């Protein structure tokens, strides 16, 4: 009997490496694929793609499986980077990883794999499929369903998440035991595709800086200056250039960004943790995508790895039992019923 074919997205990290290893051990015919989504070096920021690719290929060779590089750079630029820049320019804080999964990994990669005769695709995400439904990983600390809630049902039906039943320490231990060189490779931080660089530094390559005022929302007093309101996110408290108000503000309490006026290019901050702009009991969602029938009482995750909060959802509006800190617009709210990911939407 000929074995089933799986195309595994291999990023060079330990999670996707162990995923490929498990599938190979389970008897699948495995083909490792490095998705080349971004290779541009920006000044002072070296894109790690070539090293990541080498790590992925080294593992594929060790496992004795075929390995290919699929170039999605053009699509990634159009569907992910352009979308991201457009959203930031509108004052939102988009999530490029969610877009990448929706448009690249579980669309273009999936489609090309199927064309090539795949029975399944696989990735190194911490997630599970239970009775055909997307479900949270065993490792609550690592669960990545927040990034996956928008992937298509069709792709999900042909997806294996080999490490969804494992914890990260187990994954690392297995990688080490099997002699994978990247068992303890540092996880990428910052903007995933550009390497060790913050979002603001990345955005500055594409969006001109536009000096503006930072004002205290209660007093309208100018506390400092910023490089462009689009670079700031509601709730942010680092990277604010406040000045000239020593003594008055230097009581050890941090300022938070609570509001942005894009038209006037003003960033409003507050020290008052009770500021009405920070807290809310309701969130309106757009582009809602429901994977299954909605339940009345649900759990909501507002950031990757954030706690699950009980809420009610009418298909458009989320209502929480008590006040929550308002997430930035453009971020996603992902809905759960127990372990099952029901879908989610983008916060208006």
């Amino acid at each position, binding site marked *: 009997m000929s074995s089933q074919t799986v195309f595994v997205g291999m990023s060079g990290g330990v999670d996707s490496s162990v995923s490929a290893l498990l599938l190979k051990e389970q008897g699948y*015919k495995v083909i490792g694929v490095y998705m*080349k989504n971004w*290779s541009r070096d920006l000044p002072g920021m070296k894109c790690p*793609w*070539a*090293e990541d*690719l*080498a790590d992925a*290929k*080294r593992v594929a*060779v*060790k496992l*004795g499986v*075929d*390995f290919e*590089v699929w170039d999605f750079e053009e699509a990634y630029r159009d569907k992910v980077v352009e979308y991201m820049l457009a959203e930031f320019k509108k004052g939102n804080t988009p999530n490029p990883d969610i877009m990448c999964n929706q448009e690249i990994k579980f669309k273009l990669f999936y489609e090309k794999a199927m064309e090539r005769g795949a029975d399944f695709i696989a990735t190194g995400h911490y997630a599970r499929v239970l009775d055909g439904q997307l479900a949270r990983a065993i490792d609550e600390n690592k669960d990545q369903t927040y990034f996956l809630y928008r992937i298509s049902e069709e792709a999900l039906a042909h997806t294996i998440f080999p490490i969804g039943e494992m914890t990260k320490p187990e994954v690392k231990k297995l990688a080490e035991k099997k002699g994978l060189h990247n068992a303890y490779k540092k996880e990428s931080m910052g903007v995933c595709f550009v390497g060790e660089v913050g979002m603001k530094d990345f955005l500055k390559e594409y969006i001109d800086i536009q000096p503006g005022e930072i004002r205290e929302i209660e007093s309208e007093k100018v506390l400092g200056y910023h490089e462009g309101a689009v670079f700031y996110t509601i709730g942010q408290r680092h990277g604010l250039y406040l000045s000239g108000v020593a003594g008055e503000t230097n009581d050890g309490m941090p300022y938070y960004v609570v509001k942005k006026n894009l038209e006037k290019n003003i960033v409003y901050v507050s020290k008052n943790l009770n500021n009405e702009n920070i807290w809310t009991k309701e969130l309106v969602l757009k582009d809602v995508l429901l994977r299954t029938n909605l339940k009345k009482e649900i759990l909501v995750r507002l950031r990757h790895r954030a706690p699950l909060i009980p809420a009610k959802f009418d298909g458009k509006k989320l209502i929480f039992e008590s006040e929550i800190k308002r997430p930035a617009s453009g971020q996603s709210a992902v809905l759960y019923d127990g372990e099952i990911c029901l879908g989610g939407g983008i916060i208006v």
Partner: protein
Amino acid sequence: MIYLDYAAATPVSRKVLAAMEPYFTDEFFNPSAAYLPAKKVAAEYEVAKGVIAHAIGAKSNDLVITGGATEANNLAFTALGAEPYPCHEGAAPGILYLETEHDSVRAVAEKYGGEAIKVLPNGVIDLADLKAKITDETRLISVSLANNELGTIQPLAEIGALVKNVRIGRLKRGIKTPIYLHSDASQALNLLDINVARLGVDMLTLNAAKIYGPKGVGALYVSHDVKLTPISVGGGQEQGLRSGTENVPGVIGFATAIHETKEHLNGNRKKYANYKRILLSELKDYELVNKKHSLDNFVVLCYNGIDAERLIYLLEERGVYVATGAACAASKGKKSHVLAAIGLTDSQIAGSLRLTLGETNDEEQVHEAAKIINQVVQDEKRRTKNE
């Protein structure tokens, strides 16, 4: 470990390391300082530079010490004038460079709109193409003495003679535009007997890192006729052409390494030629890429239909370290422009391995390497057949 990548890096020899060591600690003085211990260091630095210069038939004052060969190559191109080189629209840039040059020459030449000279399928410069491309505007020709991927030795003396004739011809016709010949000799320094006058070069790039000296130390030989513009200014060291406190230990190491190299030149060439013979007779199912005109320590093999990058990882597991001309991390996914220039197909390029021999290798290692490479190639062939 069997290291077969000497074209990429060489270990610093014990002797070189020992010679350098006191200049990091006891003899740490700034050569520019006024007191006697510093003057002693300054004198020793000059002696070391003299040793390096002497090894290529030049004088200490003809050398500009740099932070490696890349900087030396960049500096050589300032012979065209101060940066930014006036490359206005329509102006002939006047630069010719061999299409198989190392990136440190290619990138500068391309930046200033240089034109590439073709190589023949054996990797040697196409002299007819060179002659056809030299015009009265041509001001700089850059051709490496030995190629870093193939080891191909270029007929520099012949090119030097040609450039000399062009120069005489221009003078005869009252044309003032100068023409210079630059050569990057990084890869050739420990295998060829180099003399700048015999080669007829105006500038020559040297590199300590390829001859068992320290990394980050190089030199540019510059003849008296050439006027360079410094890339970095400051204290005016190196005849004003490269400011910055002298790298005394680096230059002492460089001098020791070049002296050693010169002493063992003939013995090494014979030794490597013998190893090469062993490899070529014991390896199986390959095509030899660098058949002729190549340095004795370069063996470039092609396993058509096999992904040589996979071989690298398989060999690495067996403790054998080699290089490839294929797309890989080292080349940022670009295929080798050198192998493409000599007419290899994409599949042949993907199947190419570069073995470069050096000091730590012995006959036993070479036999062992051949055995392991044969096994790995067989395994890989079997794997692809089964799928």
